[in-house]
């Protein structure tokens, strides 16, 4: 039986300690992990589906699924990659089920916080609009390569796509983005 850490101890604890506590069944520790990891996971889904509400729903699904299966995780150090793979699988299942995965520009511009300089916001909106024109699997490969900085092989393992397909998606997707964002350079 593992003693649960107090909220203060959790806030100050290093990531591996928190993950180990969550694996041992400490739900407070898992809540702390949600707080620490929500940014990257929500950002990944926002990139993929451009709808903040849908992205948050999918992120919650990912965290729920991770909570259900966290006791199967062998090494605390593998948590971040494992959670990301769960998120990728959730999105791929949605794509394969033929459910909507990308929304129009209006939803995003209404929901974004206008706290950044206008030029940067426009640049990001341009990038998001350009990304949305890519087919779902190409968008996924581009996002994993450029936003998550995953190698081709890692993307291949996470998406179960052949290595050649991953490389071609990234090359052709980046070329398409460069065309669409011609003015950014």
């Amino acid at each position, binding site marked *: 039986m593992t003693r649960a850490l107090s909220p203060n101890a959790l806030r100050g604890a290093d990531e591996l300690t928190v993950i180990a506590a969550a694996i041992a069944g400490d739900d407070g520790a898992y809540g702390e992990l949600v707080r620490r990891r929500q940014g990257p996971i929500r950002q990944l889904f926002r990139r993929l589906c451009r709808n903040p509400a849908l992205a948050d729903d999918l992120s919650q699904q990912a965290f729920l699924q991770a909570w259900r299966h966290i006791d199967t995780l062998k090494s605390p150090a593998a948590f971040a990659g494992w959670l990301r793979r769960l998120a990728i699988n959730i999105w791929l299942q949605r794509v394969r089920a033929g459910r909507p995965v990308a929304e129009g520009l209006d939803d995003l511009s209404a929901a974004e916080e206008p706290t950044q300089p206008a030029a940067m916001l426009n640049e*990001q909106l341009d990038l998001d609009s350009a990304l949305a024109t890519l087919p779902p699997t190409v968008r996924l490969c581009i996002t994993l390569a450029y936003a998550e900085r995953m190698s081709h092989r890692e993307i291949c393992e996470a998406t179960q796509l052949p290595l050649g397909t991953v490389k071609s998606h990234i090359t052709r997707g980046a070329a398409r983005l460069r065309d669409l964002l011609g003015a950014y350079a």
Partner: protein
Amino acid sequence: MNDAGLDPDLLRLFAEAPTPPEGTFVAATIAKLESARRARLIRRLAGTIVILVVAAIVAPYVAQQTLIAMDWLTDRLPETGAALASPIGCVCAAVIAWRIARRQFN
């Protein structure tokens, strides 16, 4: 990490993307986790109750059939029957049952 062939301008654009603010997301997710935890607890309790009820219904029948089988064994194989019914036989059976149960639940 393999950055070979990645466009530096695109990399910069992706890196500049703001992280979404925490807002109510964490509280909403923790509330969902709480309800999932309650649902899991209820499922486990219901499962345990079902097992106990089924065991209570089936136990007399199983005991009766066991006695019949033991009778049959002791009638036909006096030595084996006596060995099974002896304290050592009972301990061996208990050990085997315990090992099977451990393998089942681990």
